[in-house]
């Protein structure tokens, strides 16, 4: 470990110097080694039982004297000893999780409540652990020996035994060996030396090829060979800096006019429509889907669109209730301008956007007939959630161990009153600003305007939390009277802003938003420490106009996100249908059917068949909720909510269509068609009758080097079942791609 730290320093210096010479300093961030050491749980020399004591035993004296041939009581607090970690400042107990499995193969998670050093052993830590499952899917483990491991930054320690309520009945997992301190130190030294070797190059660029591909899976709609080569050359941080400077989407938003609520006969889907595609383009979300997939497949502003798509699945509206594409586009623009901006500004822009107003009914909520839909969801779904959170995203508990609600119906009722009176932009409203208004069509391109007569003028009490006193009380309008548009208008907007401040300043917002974005980009069940690190960035930038840029950057550069491979079995996320689709297409150079140009990007049929039809979420709860627990695991896996027997096969059938088929040209909806580019794989296939080079390519491109030897040999068997004639080169390539991308191993981004 010491060697690793020493080895890292000169490289950082060198990188900085190169940067000064060749690049502008703004782009000169260095990329350190992304890998973390692997924690090692200690045992005694002759046992595979973890070194453990009651937590009351302080770690003084010789570690070697700990007698660990004992069982601990269920629910008791113990200390486990481990080595080979390198902690960042502030990284503590919540960076670690202890997982256990019993003889029935059920998994449990024991809370790590303390972390300490051990006197006399500078490289040894002790984790204080409570032997009570906090996953709660299976209840208590069966008494007896458990297999336990420690997880840290997506890495798993060795698996060793721990007796809880007994000491019998479980076998060592294959390959387990005792790891007394001497052995553990030897392993640690080996690791450090290897990492030191990887450090020993001089120059900018990013040579950790597996991590580079992982990074691109997290930050884009899929790696391409061109993009990978570029990031290899310039590094992650420089690429990120470029992305943050990138403008709006490369393929601009379609310019669609506002239309009347009742479609004219020339735009109602009849054969006399002018143009014939009028209804498709103006009264459905078809153009938005095309815009989205054009940018996802071919755009340069990948990170912007990736985060846009994540936020679309948080601040949800749906084409099921949004009548016109122009309405959805205005909403996309409201989100888009804040993607790398400030969250509070996004709250304001979304709240007054008429498409959201329509979707969650604020557009029709009035003083006399208030509507609770938007006020409830802006708290529950978009910003705060239902229960008080710690800054690391874990639940706060009351004295009885129950979660603490963030608000009740009274809060909803009061907040509803604040949000009354706004409607689609009307030039007749006081001080309305509706530059895009078109007579006869509701104006969904401009923010909602206020019908002052419909705004509630009474006092309101909003969210109450530590620090809420500045925002929680909205006084009644006045004094003395509040009966003119000129008095109500400023009151209503001041109240609205105060209410948004009241929500934004709630302590839940930082962990709520941070955890959600981590789940969308990196992993389904992040460690609390990871969430906490991002929350801190969110909070440190609360008033910054580039708050979200800092948040996104922190998420993608966090040590839990980075590293060549993640060995924690709980790490990673199921690829959502949209990502599965775009990753396959981008990794295999998607083109038009004639191969001369780009696909028309009309590919939403595929994610739709897998229960994710973009811009048509079934409900405001999105296609899948962030709190979804994978059945049988007690592991958060949001995307699994739409992974079932039917959609599992739909995924395989998507791969079949894409790899063995194409989307043919058909006017007017698929003018170019869509197909994969397989020629380079055919060439590789043709050049090597053994199929090994083809498998290397699959491993590098799709599995970023993590394909197991068994997976490799299984696919190779099917590939070599096709005889190696030049005419069969394509069939071999197709079989390799089909089997790789339909595998469960590839369904999971880890």
């Amino acid at each position, binding site marked *: 470990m010491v060697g690793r730290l020493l080895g890292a320093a000169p490289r950082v210096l060198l990188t900085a110097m190169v940067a000064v010479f060749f690049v502008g300093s703004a782009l000169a961030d260095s990329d350190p080694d992304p890998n973390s050491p692997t924690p090692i749980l200690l045992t005694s020399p002759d046992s595979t039982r973890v070194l453990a004591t009651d937590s009351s035993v302080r770690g003084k004296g010789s570690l070697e004297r700990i007698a660990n041939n004992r069982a601990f009581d269920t629910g008791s607090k113990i200390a486990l000893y481990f080595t080979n970690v390198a902690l960042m400042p502030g990284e503590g107990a919540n960076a670690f999780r202890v997982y256990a499995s019993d003889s029935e193969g059920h998994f449990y998670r024991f809370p790590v409540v303390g972390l300490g050093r051990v006197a006399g052993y500078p490289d040894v830590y002790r984790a204080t652990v409570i032997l009570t499952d906090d996953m709660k899917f299976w209840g208590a483990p069966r008494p007896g020996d458990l297999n336990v491991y420690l997880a840290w930054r997506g890495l798993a320690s060795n698996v060793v035994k721990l007796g809880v309520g007994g000491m019998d009945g479980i076998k060592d997992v294959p390959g387990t060996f005792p790891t007394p301190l001497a052995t553990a130190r030897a392993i640690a030294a080996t690791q450090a030396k290897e990492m030191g070797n990887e450090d020993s190059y001089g120059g900018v660029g990013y040579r950790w090829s597996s991590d580079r591909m992982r990074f691109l899976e997290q930050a884009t709609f899929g790696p391409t060979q061109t993009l990978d080569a570029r990031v290899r050359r310039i590094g992650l941080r420089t690429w990120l800096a470029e992305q943050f400077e990138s403008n709006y989407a490369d393929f601009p938003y379609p310019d669609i006019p506002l239309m009347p609520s009742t479609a004219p006969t020339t735009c109602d889907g009849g054969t006399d429509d002018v143009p014939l595609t009028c209804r498709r383009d103006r009264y459905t979300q078809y153009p938005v889907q095309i815009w989205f997939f054009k940018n996802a497949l071919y755009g340069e502003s990948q990170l912007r669109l990736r985060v846009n798509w994540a936020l679309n699945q948080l601040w949800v509206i749906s084409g099921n209730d949004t009548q016109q594409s122009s309405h959805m586009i205005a909403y996309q623009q409201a989100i888009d301008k804040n993607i790398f901006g400030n969250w509070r500004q996004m709250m304001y822009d979304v709240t007054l956007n008429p498409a959201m107003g329509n979707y969650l009914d604020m557009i029709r909520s009035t003083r006399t007939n208030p509507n*609770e839909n938007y006020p409830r969801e802006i708290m529950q779904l978009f910003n705060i959630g239902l229960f008080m959170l710690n800054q690391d995203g874990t639940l706060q508990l009351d004295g009885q161990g129950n979660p603490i609600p963030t608000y009740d119906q009274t809060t909803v009722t009061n907040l509803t009153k604040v949000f009354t009176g706004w409607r689609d932009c009307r030039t007749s409203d006081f001080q309305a600003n509706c530059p895009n208004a078109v007579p006869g069509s509701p104006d969904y391109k401009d923010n909602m305007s206020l019908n002052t007569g419909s705004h509630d003028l009474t006092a309101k009490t909003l969210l109450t939390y530590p620090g809420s006193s500045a925002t929680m009380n909205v006084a009644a309008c006045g004094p003395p009277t509040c009966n003119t548009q000129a008095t109500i208008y400023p009151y209503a907007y001041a109240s609205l802003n105060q209410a948004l401040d009241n929500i934004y300043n709630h302590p839940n917002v930082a962990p709520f938003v941070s955890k959600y974005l981590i789940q969308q980009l990196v992993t389904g069940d992040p460690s609390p420490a990871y969430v906490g690190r991002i929350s801190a960035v969110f909070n440190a930038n609360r008033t910054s106009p580039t708050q979200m840029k800092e948040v996104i950057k922190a998420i993608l550069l966090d040590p839990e996100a980075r590293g060549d491979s993640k060995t924690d079995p709980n790490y990673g996320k199921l690829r959502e249908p949209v990502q599965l689709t775009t990753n396959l297409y981008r990794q295999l150079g998607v083109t038009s059917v004639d191969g001369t140009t780009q696909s028309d990007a009309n590919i939403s049929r595929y994610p739709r068949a897998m229960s994710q039809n973009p811009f048509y979420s079934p409900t405001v709860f999105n296609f899948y909720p962030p709190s979804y627990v*994978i*059945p049988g695991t007690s592991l958060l896996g949001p995307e699994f909510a739409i992974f079932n027997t*039917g959609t599992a096969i739909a995924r395989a059938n998507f791969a079949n269509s894409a790899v063995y088929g194409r989307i043919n040209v058909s006017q007017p909806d698929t003018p170019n068609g869509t197909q994969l580019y397989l020629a380079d794989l055919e060439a590789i296939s043709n050049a090597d009758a053994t199929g090994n080079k083809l498998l290397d390519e699959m491993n590098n491109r799709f599995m970023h080097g993590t394909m197991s030897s068994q997976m490799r040999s299984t696919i190779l068997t*099917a590939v070599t079942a*096709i005889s190696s004639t030049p005419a069969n080169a394509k069939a071999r390539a197709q079989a390799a791609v*089909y089997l790789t991308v339909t595998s469960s191993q590839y369904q999971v981004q880890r």
Partner: protein
Amino acid sequence: MKQDRREFLMRSGCALGMTALATQMRHFGLMSAMAQEAKSERSDVVPNDYRALVCVFLAGGNDGNNTLIPNHNDATISNYGVYSAARSAQGLAIAQASLLPITVPRMGGLTYGLHPSFGPGVAGAINNGIHELWAQGKMCAVTNVGTLVAPMTRAQYQNGSVRKPYQLYSHSDQVGQYQGGRSDTESFTGWGGRVADLRTSPDNPSGLIPMITSISGAQLFTAGQTTLPLAIADSGTSLANVLNPQGFSSSAANQARLAAFNSLRTIDLSSQVVAAASDITNEAMQANAALQTSQEVTVVFPNTSLGRQLKQVARLIKKRTDLSINRQVFFVQIGGFDTHNGQITTQAAQLGDVSQSMRAFYDEMVAQGVADKVTQFTMADFSRTFNPASSGGNVGSDHAWANYHFVVGGGITSADFFGINTSNGTPFPTLTMNGPDDADNGSNARGRWIPTTSVEQYAGTLARWFGVPAGNLSSVFPLIGNFSNTDLGFLVPPA
């Protein structure tokens, strides 16, 4: 050096293959079977009849106040005038003349009215709807039912002396409690799934598909600890194609690829996320083999999402003997009930779809000779505020609490109201804002009725009929002991 490190990482990773065994066993309740054997409880006799429960979930929260309406002028309890006075000014009241009358013995023979969409007059009707089944004694209503931790009066609600369900009026949480079958804490499993955990081994010992099938994704209701639901597309896809991976011809190369496709799911299971994906795909592939032949149903179903879902259920029921299955639970769902606005038009269309589809399904069960063996029942997030939201053409209603649910099937004991009495001495609540059954208080009260009948009592009655022994009810419904009457009487448990 690289070797050493990789080896260590791989070893620690592979070591976790212990998950694999557990997940592999989760198919078809195999673990449940093992657990049962371990406890020597396999004294149950495999049933010699067929029974199925079909949950029709009205997602978004159907407004019960406009679905079941007083259609009488009795002055002693809430009557049509009371209803109309609260809803007509904003345009949310349904005209008395258009209500479909039902006679309710439990209410002293008074007349109540069903939403007009339950009759034959809806647009595109292909049958007479479910209203007709009331008079035939094949349909009943369970009243004032909702999520509860324990029985609760209005005074107790307001003084906090009895624990409330967590997060009342929130969609996701109330759906979770209806489907999860408990309201004190979040559930990872649903009550349908727990019924299947318990009954798969004794009732379907050689079933070729899981006890639970959803035609609307894998919902909480369908998830057990050891049960994974079969989730398939609606009748727009034939059973033979619904889980069939395309592109595998009989050529040697294709068969080799199919073999690899299958065996990839037996490796790399150290990752729980990968294992979960493999597990679900395995189940799909096994069910696919059992679904390759089937017979079409004979009754015409509406060509709506709900109609196609129920048609697919009917196809599976027709295939029950081939599938070697004696007990089944189904889940279908129709959305669009979150009528914060435009309720008059929207709810009429949605309830018309519900009525037409449930009636077609009932008729198909009659045709298959199992009408008294298959019970359809509704659930929903919650009911909606008695006080309207917005007004005029936009009029709708907000989230509320206690609701009315409908049970349809040949096994119904009588066409009546079932449920626990409210403070007015009847099972129908007092329709007064800030009144004795309103959770809301004061001048802002919107009419959110406090339930007197718990989800557990409603679901428990269904589960008992399905074959869950009385002694096992508490393993399906952990809080059912908080409620005295666990059999509401609208179905009769097996002898």
